[in-house]
């Protein structure tokens, strides 16, 4: 078999795509997309049917090929970088406006109320569930993690909220107003999920 990055005349599925596709809404699991030609299964086509009369070409079924696309984005957290450094040091940071005191539980360097530059502050390690959901499906990247619960956390003394995962609670147990506390990944991945929340046990 040809190496993966080599250009090919006839597209073959990538290793990921060859796995059984996840169920799509309205279609049972494993239903192939309509109109797929055998080329997608890696078959080399030696002879493509061709009519005697060119007029008949308008009735032919479409030729469908796969075009893989992969790219690594070099993403800088820029002015928000201290937040991620904080998580790596088990600190949950927000920002506060020195002029109007507005406090951001998800940091922003510029105050949306008065336009001043904000300062970094420690947020409490405990807060309350402002709202929640449990996702049973998701984007491709997160499908293996389903089901997972998302919460917006409210903190004493903060004017805005923070989006996070809630771990260690059954979906049916989650309530608006429930007390939660922050936990940190031992090995930071420099993602906002380096902090997650668990129900606060008395």
């Amino acid at each position, binding site marked *: 078999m040809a190496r993966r990055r080599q250009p090919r005349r006839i597209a073959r599925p990538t290793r990921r795509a060859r796995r059984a*596709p*996840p169920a*799509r*809404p*309205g279609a049972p699991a494993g239903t192939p*997309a*309509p*109109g797929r030609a055998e080329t997608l299964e890696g078959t080399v086509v030696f002879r493509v049917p061709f009519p005697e009369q060119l007029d008949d070409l308008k009735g032919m079924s*479409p030729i*469908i090929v796969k*075009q893989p*696309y992969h790219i690594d984005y070099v*993403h800088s*957290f820029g002015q*928000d970088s201290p937040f991620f450094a904080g998580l790596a040091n088990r600190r949950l940071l927000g920002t506060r406006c020195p002029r109007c005191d507005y406090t*951001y*539980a*998800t940091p*922003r360097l510029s105050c*949306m109320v008065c336009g001043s530059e904000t300062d970094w502050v420690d947020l409490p390690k405990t807060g309350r569930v*402002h*709202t*929640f*959901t*449990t*996702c*049973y*499906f*998701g*984007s*491709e*990247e*997160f*499908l293996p*993690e389903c089901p*997972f619960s*998302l*919460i*917006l956390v409210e903190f004493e003394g903060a*004017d*805005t*909220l*923070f*989006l*996070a*995962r809630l771990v260690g609670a059954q*979906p049916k147990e989650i309530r*608006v107003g429930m007390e939660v506390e922050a936990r940190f990944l031992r090995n930071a991945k420099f*993602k*906002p*999920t380096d902090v997650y929340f668990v129900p606060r046990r008395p």
Partner: protein
Amino acid sequence: MALKGMRPVHVVAGGVSKFAKARPDRTFQPIVKEAFDEALQDLGLEFGRANELIDGTVGCYFSDHFMRQLKAATMVQDYLGLCPKPSHRVEGGGATGGLGFQEGWKSVASGLMDVCLVFGWETMSHVQTWKGNEFIALASDVSFDYPVGGFYSGYYAMMVVRHMHEFGTTVEQMAHVSVKNHTNALHNPYAQKRLKLSVADVRAAPMVAYPLTRLDICVMSDGAACVLLASEEGLASIEKAAGRSLPRVVVTGVGRGTDAMRMADRPHGEVILLPHEKPSDYKGLKYPGVHSFRAGRMASKQAYEMAGVKNPIKDLSFVELHDAYTSSEVQTYEDMGLCRYGEGGPFAASGKAFLPGIDYGLRLRGQGTIPVNPSGGLIACGHPVGATGLMQAVFALWQLQGTIPRHFGDAALQVKDARRGAIHSHAGTGTYVTVSILERQD
């Protein structure tokens, strides 16, 4: 309040391609041409004559990711045979079509063009549904929101859980929206999903993100739509070319609003009031929080002021709004002032937004007060993003022309004596919303 120096803009004709889960039979350009051909056919205008009259275009599509083809709007311009006329592409997330409609309005109202074609499409089937969800979720902050579990249904679920907490909204009230829109679509041949459902069916469907089931959520689609806008002079030339006079449908109001990209950043302040509301209606309500769409309220307020709409439920004949979720239709009733904030759930269950004369299998006290999404909306028609807001404009035009029976081959969805309609196009988690008002003026 008419805008100073702006000319009246007529909505002359429109077309909609069949929306489908996938259209492998065509690339995107001919799908747009299907919509364009339909608009010309409706006018009885030959391509050559139309080409002479069209001054330029606005092209609308949301995501370059879905096709991996940049400059795609120029490729459509090219395929339609409209080069070298001027054109510009607009992108406004889920509100791309609504934004394109208003950019077309601007082109004509400002005097830049007499006849402007606005076309829009999306071909979302080129990637797997879950990959598509990922692309859509990239319309959330990729530093703070996307990596936590980027999934729009999850975001909307959190917003409606808060709505339920604040106001006591129930999942059964939300399910009424799904029953209404799917049932309406039984009479709309353009719709992608045409189902007779009960509230129990909606709740029994697989849970996607609590409390939203698959039947609370619109699907991804391939499809296109277009509208032809014209000044008085432009309309006169089209009428001359078509050899007949056309119904007068005019854009009388446009509005847009925005909100913080991250839901977590939304303020908890005061309600932006519409003319028929007073501060005492909302004592103690923190607004918009994550339960309401401030952008939708702002867009409605502007469009209503411009069109002279004082009390929307009385002054509008119908609304086509962006029901990507049953929950967001309920929330949008409130933003658009069809009911007060907090009353969206009971409003949905009251039947006021249902069409009169259709049997929904529900007991509805106020059926037919102000039909919302008589076409079936996004939930049933589909949501090929760049086409969606234009599809609403086309269906609204046909309502105001009284030509729904001819276009749908079924009179059930025609709103009687429709004089004034609103279209509402919505992006992100409510980050960007447009509202336009269309009126019959003869």
